[in-house]
């Protein structure tokens, strides 16, 4: 489209958000549309900015965990894990094995919960109202389990530097096994309802496609990157906790379109179940907390730690000046990076596709804005 033409045709400037049912939080997209076609899009973020990174500098290490709980508020355990691991790495703490297994189980369950939420809201974005309710029904089982373990449904504050707060309740294994059976059935039901529905296929196949190179250039990670065919997963490529002892596949797709991203996440849920199963079998008895001083004081230094969040590669760069509070905390949020190629994905698509594309990259605004 030439500039002269642009002056002639009347483009509508549509403000999608900050309060819009499909923006998954407070996020604003300014769309320039020509009829139903999107000519250009400009994302505006920051409506949920709480200054988490700066707040971290004024809090002790134990308190930081609560802040990380609130970054990606759908995958809390995964977030706690990364900050705990950062401090542990700096301090050179060896985490007891049982604690590592507990962490992995909870993280993987949290990944399922997060992907279930994605599944539900994605259905909602595509206009189907039932998946969200089915997904929440399944997610509720996981949340109940979390409540039994950590005492909270979302903001757990359960992982500690050097282990976990408390050992899991005695009936934990039994409960997890029961939930896993239910989850598997629920996920299969979700599959029947949405995955191959013709309308859903036509809404998502070939929409918002991005190729591997561009995706890497934009810094995509996690399912969004694997949907383009790049088999990058921190759990495999830079194993942490006990992931190197577990057998699991990393689903990889090819086209990088919305349906691929969706399908990948659904497959990841099955893989997570597989991981949890193995962890339950391998989990040893023993302490769940390393012997540490009560107030963590990592030595002077800096460290970068990254983990596979449900949304991708979540990294934390931690600088310590030897005091009880960190000198600087920098988060590399996967959702924020997933938002980067938004213009690339949305230019030329329909208004309705915008919603589907934004849903498919699965952002959490708490993490984008921090």
């Amino acid at each position, binding site marked *: *489209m030439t500039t002269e*033409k642009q002056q002639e*045709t*009347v483009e*509508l400037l549509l403000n999608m958000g900050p309060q819009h049912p499909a923006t998954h939080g407070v996020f604003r997209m300014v769309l320039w549309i020509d*009829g139903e076609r999107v000519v250009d899009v400009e994302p505006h973020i920051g409506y949920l900015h709480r200054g988490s990174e700066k707040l971290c500098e004024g809090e002790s290490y134990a308190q930081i965990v609560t802040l990380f709980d609130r970054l990606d508020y759908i995958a809390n355990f995964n977030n706690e894990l990364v900050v705990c691991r950062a401090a542990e790495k700096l301090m050179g703490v060896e985490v007891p094995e049982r604690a590592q297994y507990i962490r992995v189980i909870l993280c993987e369950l949290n990944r399922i919960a997060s992907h279930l939420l994605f599944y539900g809201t994605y259905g909602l974005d595509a206009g189907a109202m039932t998946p969200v309710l089915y997904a929440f029904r399944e997610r509720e089982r996981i949340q109940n389990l979390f409540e039994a373990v950590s005492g909270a449904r979302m903001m757990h504050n359960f992982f500690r530097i050097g282990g976990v707060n408390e050992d899991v309740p005695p009936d934990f294994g039994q409960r997890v096994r029961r939930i896993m059976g239910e989850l598997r059935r629920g996920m299969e039901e979700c599959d029947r309802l949405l995955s191959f529905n013709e309308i859903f296929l036509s809404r998502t196949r070939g929409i918002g496609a991005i190729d591997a190179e561009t995706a890497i250039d934009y810094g995509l990670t996690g399912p969004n990157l694997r949907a383009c065919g790049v088999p990058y997963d921190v759990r495999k490529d830079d194993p942490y906790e006990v992931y190197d002892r577990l057998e699991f596949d990393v689903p990889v797709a090819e086209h990088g379109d919305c349906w691929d991203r969706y399908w990948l996440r659904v497959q990841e849920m099955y893989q997570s179940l597989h991981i949890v199963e193995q962890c339950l079998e391998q989990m040893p008895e023993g302490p769940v907390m390393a012997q540490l001083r009560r107030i963590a004081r990592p030595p002077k230094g800096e460290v970068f730690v990254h983990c596979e969040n449900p949304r991708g590669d979540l990294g934390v760069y931690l600088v310590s000046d030897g005091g009880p509070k960190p000198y600087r905390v920098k988060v590399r949020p996967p959702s924020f990076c997933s938002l980067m190629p938004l213009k690339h994905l949305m230019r030329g698509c329909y208004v309705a596709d915008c919603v589907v594309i934004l849903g498919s990259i699965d952002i959490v605004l708490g993490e984008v804005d921090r």
Partner: protein
Amino acid sequence: MTLVVFYLLAAVTLLGAMGVVVTRNVVYAALALLLSLMGVAGIYLLLFAEFLALVQVLIYGGAITVVILFAIMLTRLREYKGVMENPQWPLGLLAATALFLVLVAAFLVDSPRMNVEERLAVPFLLLGGSLFSQWAIAFEVASLVLLVALIGAIIVARGEDSRERP
């Protein structure tokens, strides 16, 4: 009774027509047109031409007006100042007057001047039968014209489209 209704409908029709011409807001004009067309449909009903009335409502009331509105909404942001100061207005006036005179003349020359009665209402079946037998050629020609118009419209739209998006 019938006369009262007729005058009412005629008034509605005329008012609508006036509205189309007078108003400066294009959307109002389209809606006034709808009003006028509905009035005409009512007059058809008075003449016991039910089918015609319904066709009038269906085609003009529903489809045509909506398409006009559709077009207007797409071009909404343009300014319409100066539409009334068209340099061609004398020509338009001439054409309108001529048309009016022709219609009046036609009415005066060849007017059946009979009272419309219910027995004159054409049964629906008969209408359909004659349309497809006696007037089949005219019917087909009309549909052909529409088809050509349709294809032309598509070609015009496509051409512009391809120019815009190479």
